[in-house]
């Protein structure tokens, strides 16, 4: 996969620090699966966490026996973790589906999902991973554009299938648009197949223009 648009360093630091809302963390994990460049920078951001862990003045454990009691547990079996459902097929969810997203969707392919129609040529699925903001899959047909909008907080968009063009550039499968409240954009699907994106925000979007304000209540983002 030839990735040209990457995660911002600040976003990778937030993922490393564990402070992203769940939907944005999910999207970051999806991009990391296919992007060695961002994995390298994440390793550096996590090393910052490791260095900071060493800098903290240690706080003694409450019990002098803490070590003994943990040593006593070393042979015990880990509690039966909610094992992720074994995903069948060569690549659960299809080749365009990151594994961590396939887990979230119980291994269903994009075409097997229940898309909700928003406007002609635009469909979406709300993923509800919890936390502030919204996380959804958006699917828009060739020649269709998403209403012009800006953001109050951050918006991450990961292209899963197809491509789009906007004020920022051209985004293909694997590319991520990492935008903050300074950018307004209007993605247009200029290819001849549906474009499917995973989009995660940490605050509601601001739509501009009458069309945008009309659809906002329906999109609910």
């Amino acid at each position, binding site marked *: 996969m030839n990735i040209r648009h990457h995660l911002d360093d*600040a976003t990778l630091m937030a993922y490393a620090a564990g*402070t992203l809302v769940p939907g944005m963390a999910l999207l970051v994990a999806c991009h990391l699966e296919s992007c*060695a460049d961002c994995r390298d920078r994440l390793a550096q951001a996590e*090393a*910052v966490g490791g260095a*900071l862990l060493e*800098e903290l003045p240690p706080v003694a454990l409450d019990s002098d026996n803490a070590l003994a009691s943990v040593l006593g547990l070393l042979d015990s079996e880990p509690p039966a973790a909610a094992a992720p459902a074994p995903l069948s097929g060569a690549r659960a969810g299809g080749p365009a589906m990151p594994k*961590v997203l396939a887990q979230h969707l119980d291994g269903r392919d994009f075409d097997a999902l229940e898309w909700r129609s928003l406007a002609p040529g635009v469909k979406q699925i709300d993923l509800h991973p919890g936390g502030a903001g919204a996380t959804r899959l958006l699917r828009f047909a060739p020649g269709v554009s998403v209403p012009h909008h800006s953001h109050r907080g951050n918006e991450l968009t990961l292209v899963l299938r197809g491509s789009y063009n906007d004020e920022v550039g051209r985004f293909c499968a694997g590319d991520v648009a990492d935008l903050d*409240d300074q950018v307004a954009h209007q993605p247009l699907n200029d290819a001849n197949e549906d474009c499917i994106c995973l989009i995660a925000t*940490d605050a509601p979007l601001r739509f501009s223009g009458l069309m945008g304000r009309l659809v906002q209540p329906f999109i609910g983002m």
Partner: protein
Amino acid sequence: MREEWTACLARMAETRDRALFARLFEHFAPRVKAYLIRLGMAPAQADELAQEAMLSVWRKAHLFNPGKANASTWIFTLARNLCIDRLRREKMPCYELDADMPDGDDRDAGEGAVISDRLAACIRRLPEAQAQVLYMSYYDGRSHSEIAEVLGIPLGSVKSRLRLAFDKLKAMWGESS
């Protein structure tokens, strides 16, 4: 020396030696507890979770790759994930690579440890404004929007301060290779 802990963890993963685990526990459990308290966790819960984190150090040691991270970084990520799982009652989404997919350049463990020592020194030298946002993010667990609100500065300024800090810290990797 941090290098020593990385070698210790790698050796424990190989030999399953409990004496090595005990050494790692004595060093890291109080630091993980301190980190969890800084994140806002009640001391009793932090105590319990620090023990749980050390238990997962033992159980997941086979996943530790000294070419990717040093001991403190790896243990930091385990503690962070446990904390998220506990606070949000959901899993920290982590990426999974295909077994046959190469994952960047492996460094040798010694090199990673040198980087870590330099990294700590470099963090101490950051300008106040950059160190502040770094600490608020990693230690206080605040999102960038929350930091912007607390400091009364635009979100973009929080992110650019973090980027500036990260650029300085990233230079450590360049220097050592």
